[in-house]
Every structure is written in C-alpha cells, then in structure tokens.
C-alpha cells in the first residue's frame, strides 16, 4: 500500500496557508485509504495555482493547458478504462475558460472525478475577478466592483446530469477526504467543488468567512430538485455529498469490448484489410 511519502512529487510553491494544501492532502489520503498504488491513477490538471497539483502528487500526471483538463482526462479514461482518472483545476480553469467542457462532461458521465479548487479569484495572475467572484467583489481587473453574478457550479452539474456532486471546504479535511474517497469510488462523472481560500488575493472569501457561513449535510438529497432548492436557500454554502445517482457510466453504456492499447508493431492485418476492402467494390 502506498504511503504519503510515495505520493509526494515536486515541492509545492503555493503560498503558506493556501487552501490547496488541504485539497492535495485530501486527494493523497484518499488514494492511500482506498488502498491504491500511485500507478493506478492519472492526475490531469489545468493551469493556475491549482494546476500545479499534478506536479506535486507523485503519480501518472499530465499538467495540461488552461481549461482543458476535463476533455483530456476523458480521453485518458477512454484510452485506458482501468485507470482511476482525476481532473483538477481552479474555478477560472473549470468555470471560466473550461465551462463548456464541464457541462458536457456532467451529462456524458464518463467514470472520472473532477476536483475543483474554488478560491473565487485568479491567483497565479495576481488577483483578478473570477467567474466565482461575488457580485460587488473589487479587484484590479475591473474598473469598478464586479457587476456580474457568479457561476453556480454545483447546481450546474446537478442540473446537467452529473451522477455525483459534492462540495467541500479546505478547512475541514476530514469531510473533504471522505467526499474525495466517495467521488473516486463513484462509477461515473463525479464533481467535487471545494472552497479553498486564497490567503494572498481574496480578502472576502476567507477561512473565517466560510467558518461562519457553511452548513454541512450528512446525507445526500434524494432528488436533484431538493439539492438545488437547498443550495439556493443557503447561497450555495452547503458542504457534503449533495447528490448521487447510480447509473451506467458512458463506457459501460457503449457496450464495446474496449481494447485500444494493445496494437502491436508489425505488418497490417492482411485478412482484415482484404475483408474490409470488399465493401468498396
């Protein structure tokens, strides 16, 4: 069984106190507690502070480009259905530039986990408004306070058919680990949004902010509507597994006996070629 040491990659460069540390620890603890070896995972990350997680966890990792971790991760899972695939990135990566992919991944239901480190700000580019920044939020990238309203990530994935939707908080690593473990084990697309304070640039959504406001639920809601209703009532500030549904994942539904990696060097399959040519005559 893997230990924490086995899962340690490059030395993190996140700011001291950054919420992302707990999320990474949550992912690593989940891998250990579930009894997997590092090589059974593929961790695909996008760009931003959060995107560096693929370099910090020792596994099969791919540090990709901005907003595209989700489609790349789906391709990885299609290529090798035996892998446990985790895509990870920030709220700008997933709900800004990559929002389209997130919605489609939710309805497609490929068996993978998408873990979003939501700090409601662009950190690595030094503090611009993000798609999760609150209405009225003040940053240097806007001439006035934020006139837009934030994306609602969990209601989006719930309403678009994701079969596992949860929300966690960096300040509660016990609950976080529980959620991530369940997300990894869930067969289908699991979306985990995690409130992760940016201690350097976000002076609104701080640890204290979340401590005062978050409510936590023990059991998932029974219906998508109930989950959405509760989230609306609490301005989205609900943690726990919000909704789970058991449904065949995309690859199971295709019903194909997948065998994509085993192509061998050597001559083309002459018999197949001859057989397939017939239909062009």
């Amino acid at each position: 069984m893997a230990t924490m040491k086995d899962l340690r990659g490059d030395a993190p460069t996140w700011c001291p106190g950054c919420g992302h540390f707990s999320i990474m620890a949550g992912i690593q603890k989940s891998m250990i507690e579930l009894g997997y070896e590092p090589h059974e995972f593929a961790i695909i990350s996008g760009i931003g502070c959060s995107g560096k997680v693929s370099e910090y966890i020792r596994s099969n990792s791919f540090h990709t480009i901005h907003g595209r971790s989700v489609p790349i991760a789906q391709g990885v899972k299609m290529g090798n259905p035996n892998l446990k695939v985790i895509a990870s990135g920030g709220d700008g990566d997933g709900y800004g530039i990559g929002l389209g992919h997130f919605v489609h991944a939710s309805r497609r239901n490929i068996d993978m986990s998408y873990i979003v480190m939501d700090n409601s700000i662009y950190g690595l580019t030094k503090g611009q408004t993000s798609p999760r920044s609150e209405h009225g939020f003040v940053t240097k990238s806007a001439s006035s306070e934020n006139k837009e309203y934030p994306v609602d990530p969990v209601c989006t994935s719930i309403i678009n058919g994701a079969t596992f939707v949860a929300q966690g908080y960096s300040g509660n690593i016990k609950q976080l680990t529980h959620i991530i473990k369940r997300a990894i084990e869930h067969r289908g697309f699991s979306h985990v949004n995690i409130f992760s304070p940016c201690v350097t640039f976000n002076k609104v959504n701080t640890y204290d902010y979340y401590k005062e406001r978050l409510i936590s639920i023990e059991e998932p809601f029974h219906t998508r509507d109930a989950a959405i209703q509760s989230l609306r009532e609490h301005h989205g500030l609900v943690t726990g597994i919000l909704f789970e549904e058991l449904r065949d994942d995309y690859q199971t539904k295709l019903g194909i006996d997948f065998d994509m990696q085993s192509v061998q060097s050597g001559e083309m399959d002459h018999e197949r070629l001859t057989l397939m040519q017939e239909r062009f005559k």
Partner: protein
Amino acid sequence: MRTSIEWMVGGQQGEGIDSTGELFARTLVRYGYSVSTYKQFMSRIKGGHTNYKLKATIQRNYYAGDEIDILLCLDKESLEKNESNLSKGALIIQEGTVENLIRNEEKQYDIFTVPLKKLASELGNPLAKNMIAIGISSALVDLPKELLNHFISEIFEKKGEEVIRTNIQAVAKGYELTTNFLSHLVSPLEKADLKDQLFMSGNEATAFGSLMAGCRFLSAYPITPASEIMEWLAKELPAVGGTVMQVEDEIAGICLAIGANYSGVRAMTSTSGPGISLKTEAIGMAGMSEVPIVIVNSQRGGPSTGLPTKHEQSDLQHMIYGTHGEIPRIVLYPSTIEEAFYIAAESFNLAEYYQCPVIVALDLGLSMNKMTVPSFNSKRVEIHRGKLLTEEELKLYKEDFFSRYRFTDDGISPRPLVGMKNGLHLTSSNEHGEDGYITEDPELRIKMMRKRLEKTKEAMIQEPFKLQSSTGISPKEVDILLVGMGSTFGAINEAMTKLNEQGRETYAHLHIQQLYPLPLEQLSDLFENKRIITIENNYTSQLLILLKQHLPIHNQAESIVQFDGNPFMIKTLLEQMKKVV
C-alpha cells in the same frame, strides 16, 4: 468507339442526385473502367443546384474531366450552369411531356426530352425515374445490360424483390428508349479490364488507412468536408475494440484524442479550417509535452466561415506554423485517394516515433469525391510503435519516477504506458527538465528546445513527393517543373502531358506529399536549372512561399493560383500557363 465518357447528373439538392451519380459511377467501376468523380453542392439541406460529374476511362485517371458528353438535367440550372462545358455532340437528357429529340445546331448538342416521371410511375416505382436515365446513358455507350442488372440486384437486395424488379425494368426502359430514339448517337465505350479496383473517397481512404494502422479512437466535431471520416470510423471502430466520440467542440475533439494518445492509444481527430484554428493551442501542447497526435485537416474555402462546401488549399501556412511558440511537427498531404490510405497509416508511425503532432492535410476535392483505387497492399506500411516501453524494458531503468524527457542521441525519449507499475511519470506543457518538473533554468531550456525541435529533422515518409513526366522525357532534365499538392494531381498531370505534346518547352510534374519538414536535399537537386511554377488553390501562393523560404529559387519560380472555390480545369490551367510562360 470512344475511350472515355464524361457524364453528369444535375438537379436540386435532396432529389437523389448523389445516389444517381454514385450508382452510375459504381456501375462503370464494375465494368472495369477507371472512374473519377466531382460533386458540386451547397451549404443547405434541401434545394439549390447540385451536380455529380464523372469521367470513366479505360486507363487509370485521376481527374473528373473538363467536359460533359452526357448531361442528365433534373432542374433548369443543370444546363445553364454547365452548358459551356458540353463537348461537341453532347447529349442532354431532360424531363419532358413526350419523347422528343431536338438538335441545337449552333451549339452542336442534342436535347432528348423524355417523361421520366410518368414512365417510372407506369412501372409502379416513381423513384426509379433516375434509373431510366441511367439505362439511357448505359445504352448510349453500349454497356452490356446483364452486368448492370446483376449490380442492381446486389445494391437493392435489402429493399426486396419488388424494388429490384422495377429498377431492372426501368433500366430496360432506358435501353429501349435509346434503341427507339437515339440509336444514331450510340458510341460504344471501348472495353476496359482494370482488376481489383476499389471505389472510395479520400475521407474513406484516410479513415480506412488509420484503422488499419491501429488507430482505435477518434474524437471530433461535425464539420464539412471532414465529417465522413468520423462517420466511417464510428461504424468500424467498435469491431476492433475502439470507438469514435462526437464531442462538444473542436477543442474537446483534439483534447480527448491527445488524452487517449497519452494513455497509449493510437488516436486522432479530424476537422476542417475553422476547427484547425480552434485546435491550435492544443497542437502546441502536444508538441511541447511530446504526446503523439494525428490531426486530419480537410481544407475548404476560407477564411472564417468562407465557402464551407467549396474547394481550397489555403491552410498550408496555418498547418505548418500555427500555434504560439515553436514546436516539432510533421505536415503531410496525400496527392491521391490511394496515397491518403498509406499516408494516414504512416502518420501514426511518425506521430508515435517522433512523439509530436502529425497533420494530414486533405482538401474538399480529395475528401469528398470518389475515385477508383487499386486494392491496398498490407505490406507497404508496417506498424511501428516507436519508443513505447514494455513493462519488462521499464524495469531495467530502475527508476522511482521515470524521466519522461530524458536526453537521448536522437532527441526522442522512451515512453512508458500510463498505468505501468514502474512507469510513473510527469507529462507537462510547461518547460520542464528530464523528469518533467517545471524549470526556468536557461541552460536546461536551451537543451530541451534543441531536443524537441531537432528530433524531426530526419522524418521522411516513403514517398515525400511524386515526380512524373511524359513518355520519353526525363523529369530531371525538363525546362519547367509544375509543382502541386493534394487533389490537383490529376489535372496538373493531364495538363503537363498536353504541354509536352505541344512540343515547345519540356515539362515535368512534381507533387509534394511531405510539406514539413520538406525533403530539401532532393528538392534542391531537382530544382536546379529549371523554372518552377507552383499550381495552387489559394490567393497568396502559399506553396511557392514555403519553397522560397527554404530553397534559393527566387529568380526562377512563380505561381498559378485559383481561389474561386472550384478545382482547376485543364483548359483554364493551360490558359494561365500561356500567360506565365
């Protein structure tokens, strides 16, 4: 006795123009002729003029021809749009109330009006009206009816006895009409005997070649003229344990395919110009992170939405240079449908060997039009999976964390499959060290850039270009070299033959199939002491610019271009040649 026939059916979209054309083309293929076709169509579902042109010859041909000997008009525009291309003594078949043959002396063609709809209804199958016209056409070139009947039974097998019977009767009706009204116009087509011919489009050949080379995954977004690649593989891949995914957008199209390649699968994406623009950032990622990927770009009329259903060759520079920063890449461009099969197969070998993006360029002319192709040879392209490591080989490295980007003599690093026990590694789009971790160290940066950008220098496909001249002329010793790429192959080749027949200057035809990296040594020898004329379907002479950039030919090279959305005709090519030479 004629040695070729040029035939066209025209009508409104949605009227079965395509299927009528295809049926007659396949009939001629069965009789052993070489057949080339060209479809004109518009970006709408119903209505609008469309036509299907074919040329059948007794020897191999690669061009659907300039002229029309028999024109089947199912709408008014068919004659208006194509009248200038009718050959002397052409026959036009038109719907009319009674059978009647009218001679147009001034323009030297005949119009045969015939109540196709009424006759087909009388046979009990109004849909068979186009079959009557096929019967007339077949009789006009004296094709034996029996083989045609046999073919009809085969293609309508699933539709039942009744449909077969009425279609055979419709063809018989056509033969009868020819005997009764057009017997003086019958001109038999010399018998042909081309064996083992396949009839397919460039898209089908590309998809087929990819599958045979071990491609097991394609993710793409629908786009004309490339969609057929996705559709063909969607039907065929599940049987070999693979699949196609139609995804949300062009970016997902390439990203899923890159993900699958990363996990050790031969995977591809297919698109056209607007899609290649959107995929550009991901192409850069594949180059930087050294993940193989095959991208098929079937070019159409640009820029922007441009002419979505028309032919053009204007993405050359985008395919060669597009993406920020500098990456290794290979750009190939098959000259014929036959080559599309083999080059698609080779592209997967190159992508995996060099661990970089390989772009296979097609164009609408090549993608969507069918042609006869000799049966494929399973031995011509072997599958080579490059430096992909086995579990056993991996053990010998004894590495705790595999150095994915280790420096090697040829710049190509061994690659473990994701999921192998001893193969944990990091793949990255950031500048990285040998272990994959981010670096900004200037010395390491220089070494990594050299590793990536120099590794494809020796890349070479089996046939980086095709070079031909007329009988008795050595292509290396001609005065003028005509240089093209892609689907212009047939037209340039026939134009070259005609120019050599005129007997003033001597000409050869060079068709480049490996655009990047260019086979410079061979081209450099070839270009010496010759005039170079590129022939290309774009405004800015992109092929000429590319050649000038790499070879000292500035005082000896010029171009002929056409960018009206249509392929070159031989007559317009010859007219343009007159101006240049």
